[in-house]
Structures are given as C-alpha cells and as structure tokens.
C-alpha cells in the first residue's frame, strides 16, 4: 500500500522541485517516402508524419492530466534526410525542411529533428546537398532541428566535415542574425551520434530503428538537488547513494509515461533517456546540483569530479528503473538552458575550457554556448575538432552547439527564448588554428576502435 509520505513526496517533486518528463519523442522512419521526384518526396514526408503523429500531442496531454506530471515537449525525430532524399532530383533540401516544419506544426509538436547527415567517414552527394542547404533551411523554418555526425570511435574524425561545419555555423548565424543567431541553436555537430536520442536539437531516427518508436526523455535536476540538501556535509558514498535513489524514482516516471504512450499510440516502446535535462528556470539546474555538493560556483576546480559522480550515479540509479535505457543518458550541461550555468558564466567561474573538461565525464558536449560574433569559422571548426577528439578517444557521444552571435561581444547577454533560455557571450581562445583546420582529410580511427 502507498503511504501518505510516498504520495506527498511525489507531488512535492512535481510542484516544488520541477520534476517533469521533458519529452515524448516519436521516431518515424521516412525511408519509405523516397521518390525521384522532389515534390512527391515532400508530399509523402508530410503525409507520413501527419498520419503517424496525429495523436501524439493529445496522448501526451491525456497522460499529463491523468498522472499529474508535466510532459513539457512532444517531438518527432525522423530518418536523416540525407538518406531519405538521396534518390531525389532535388538540388537543395530546403523544400524538405519546409515540409518537415509544416507537418510538425500540423500535428502540434514542439520540434522535429532529423534534418541530418552522417558523414563520420565520408560524404555522399546527398550529404553535400544537405549540409549546403543547412543555413537556409534553419533560417526559413521554425521548429526543424538538424545534426551532422562528423566523427566516431569506429571511423575517426572527418576533418573535411569539421572544416565545413565551422563555415555552416557562421553562415547560419549570419542568416538568422536578426534573432541572435537562433538558427545555430537548432544545429548540433556530433561525434558518435546515437540513433534513439529523444532530445533536441540532436534527435534523429536511426536506420537501425523500426518504422515508428516512442522514446522518452526525463528531467529532474531540481529533485536531485533537493535530495542532496538533506545530506549536507556527508561523504561521497552517501551523495552517490542519494543520487541513485532519486534517479531511480525519476526514471520510473519516464518508464511509465513511455510505456503508456507507446500502448496508446500503438507504437513500439524504444528507450528511456536518463539524462538530467535542466531549464533556465530557478530550481531546475544541473550546476546547482554540483554546487550543492560543495562547489562554490560551477566551473571551479572540483567541478569535473562532482559532475563525474553525478553522471555515473544517475545512470546506476536509472538503469534498474527502465526496461530499455538509451539515447544520451547522462547529465546535460547546456549553458543557456541552466540557471546555475548562466550565473557561473556571468560571474566568470565557468569558462569554455572548463566546459570542455566537463564534457569528458558527462553527456554530450559544448552545448548552447553563445560566443562572440566575430569568432572565425576556423576557430569554430577547431573547437568542434577538439570536442570530436574527446568523443572519439573516449568512445562516447560528444557534441557542439555553439552560437556565434553577430554583433555581440564577450559579456553581452543573448536571449533565445523558451527552453533554449539565455546566456552571456563567453570568450573563446585568442590563438588561431587555421593551418590545422585547412589540412583536411581524416583523423584515423583510434586503436580502441579495433575491438574485434
């Protein structure tokens, strides 16, 4: 039987500590939409998405009401468009992005991800078309998200793609300059991308997935922080145990929502992603969890160790709570989407270099960081290369989502709105690595890729 304490604890997590389910993401394979006629392709994509995801939002709302837990976003991820459109006569994939945008709006979801290319080892003609289409596609659509995989532990790093993506980020910023380069917030550059990630902007529906699938991303840094407040000053063993117990409870909610949503929508249950996703709202910050452990301000020495403990304990607690765990599953550290990170960056305790170190021990990478508008394309490529190298060598997913805001200097504030939050412009290095970036070619796969 449930005790009164159990019930009040759950409701306190929801109302006071901002426990929510961040997203129900429906993955939809678009492979069957292929056509040599670009117009037919776009129409098929629109028709398939609007048919498959017709009830996604209403089912999400029903579950929200029944369970009393907010389900903040409903999203769609699709097969990487560079694969879907490869056989078409299109010379640019902007019309495909527009079809995705229109379909996603028609069913009422918050984002659609998968305007993507995977060029970890090399480009196809279609990959070239997609990447060249990116700046315009991101500028002319509202809720289409894009990702490009430029490296992996198995394949090494495609440095031609790294170089090109620096330019693409700059061009996207230029085309969306009137919105503080918002287009860049919808573009992620990955090493070791995962095929079942429900989180944006990097979600896409991998080719190893089924026709349709339901993936759920949980949240809950506020709940973890609250739990740690009760064990102030106690050893790390207690800290780790407390995080594990809390992560278990959070994940159980995600598992329940994933199961129910799959059943009601008649889709396969894919995975629950254990990531602790913050928002810029007060009481929903990963940085504040680290500070609760005793770090005076996020980014101070000790932060990496605190984050490593948090990330590991969240996984250990979450694993048993869900039948299928996947996606990115770790703590996120997006600067503009985390109140504690925003404050730490503003105060100067959190730097790009420290964030890079933090990405070695947690989920994803340099995420939602505003940088000066005059940062060169080569400098952005060099940052991408460093991050891709960390992912490649450590056999983990890393990503870069940088926003070079035209006309903004270090310290200026940038407002992206909604879950994307706001952030101070952070400084990048002052020394260039252009000659390094212009070499091109591939960084060979590391020894650890040879596991067979």
């Amino acid at each position: 039987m449930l005790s009164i304490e159990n019930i009040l604890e759950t409701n306190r997590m929801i109302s006071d500590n901002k426990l929510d389910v961040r997203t129900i993401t429906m993955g939809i394979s678009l492979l069957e939409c292929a056509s040599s006629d670009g117009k037919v392709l776009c129409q098929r994509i629109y028709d398939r998405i609007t048919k498959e995801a017709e009830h996604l939002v209403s089912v999400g709302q029903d579950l929200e009401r029944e369970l009393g837990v907010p389900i903040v976003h409903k999203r769609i991820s699709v097969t990487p468009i560079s694969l879907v459109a490869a056989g078409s006569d299109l010379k640019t994939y902007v019309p495909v992005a527009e079809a995705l945008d229109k379909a996603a709006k028609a069913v009422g979801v918050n984002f659609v991800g998968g305007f993507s290319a995977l060029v970890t080892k090399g480009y196809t003609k279609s990959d070239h078309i997609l990447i060249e289409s990116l700046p315009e596609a991101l500028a002319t659509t509202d809720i289409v998200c894009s990702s490009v995989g430029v490296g992996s532990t198995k394949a090494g790093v495609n440095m031609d793609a790294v170089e090109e993506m620096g330019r693409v980020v700059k061009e996207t910023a230029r085309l969306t300059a009137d919105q503080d380069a918002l287009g860049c917030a919808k573009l992620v550059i990955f090493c070791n991308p995962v095929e079942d990630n429900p989180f944006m902007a990097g979600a896409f529906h991998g080719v190893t997935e089924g026709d349709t699938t339901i993936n759920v991303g949980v949240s809950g840094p506020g709940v973890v922080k609250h739990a740690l407040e009760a064990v102030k000053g106690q050893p790390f063993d207690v800290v780790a145990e407390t995080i594990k117990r809390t992560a278990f409870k959070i994940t159980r909610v995600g598992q329940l929502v994933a199961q129910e949503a799959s059943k009601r929508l008649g889709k396969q249950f894919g995975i629950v992603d254990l990531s602790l996703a913050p928002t810029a709202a007060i009481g929903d910050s990963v940085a504040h969890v680290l500070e609760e452990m005793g770090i005076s301000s996020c980014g101070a020495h000790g932060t990496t160790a605190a984050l490593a403990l948090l990330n590991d304990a969240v996984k250990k607690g979450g694993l048993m709570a869900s039948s299928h765990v996947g996606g990115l599953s770790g703590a996120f550290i997006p600067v503009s989407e985390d109140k504690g990170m925003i404050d730490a960056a503003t105060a100067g305790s959190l730097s790009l270099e420290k964030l890079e170190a933090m990405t070695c021990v947690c989920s994803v990478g340099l995420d939602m960081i505003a940088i000066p508008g005059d940062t060169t394309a080569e400098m952005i490529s060099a940052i991408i290369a460093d991050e891709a190298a960390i992912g490649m060598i450590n056999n983990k997913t890393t990503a870069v989502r940088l926003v070079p805001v035209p006309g903004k200097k270090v310290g200026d504030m940038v407002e992206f709105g909604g879950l994307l939050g706001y952030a101070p412009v952070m400084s990048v290095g002052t020394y260039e690595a252009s000659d390094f970036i212009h070499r091109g070619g591939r960084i060979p796969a590391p020894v650890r890729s040879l596991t067979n």
Partner: protein
Amino acid sequence: MKAMKLVVTVVGVDRVGIIAGVANTLAAHNVNIESINQTILDGMFNMIMMCEMKDGNNLATVQEALAQEGQKLGVEVRAQHADIFLSMHRIG
C-alpha cells in the same frame, strides 16, 4: 477499459467540512472512496484518498469539479492516476 485507481490529494489549512466537501464531490461523480488517510503535517491539513473511478467516467470532469470544490474550501485538491505513485515507490 477497466476501472481507474485514483489518488486524491488534499492539502491546505484545516477547517470544518473539507472531508465532507471532497467526499460529496466524488460521490456526485460516481467515484468510490476505498480508503482515507488524513494527518496534520507542518500545521497543514493533508489527506489522501484512494479511490476507484468506474468505466465511462471522465477524469477531466472529476478533476475540474474537485478543483472548484477545493477553491471553495480554500485547499488544493488533486486527482491523479495511482500508477505514478506505484511506479515510483513500488517495485514489482
């Protein structure tokens, strides 16, 4: 569809008629109360009712009626599917 197990939570400042008001609202919507657990925590009135809602009943209507009754009584009333609590606090 089988009957839905509901958890009704009432939190607020204690006064005369809270249990009566909430119970009457539930009865009016054909929701059966299976157990009541009530206590005063940190000076606040806390009540948990385990209920069963029969087929064909609309949860949104019940929630709306409870919210209105809560407003009248000056307490916060929530009705949630029991699964969220069972998932979080029970294994197996």
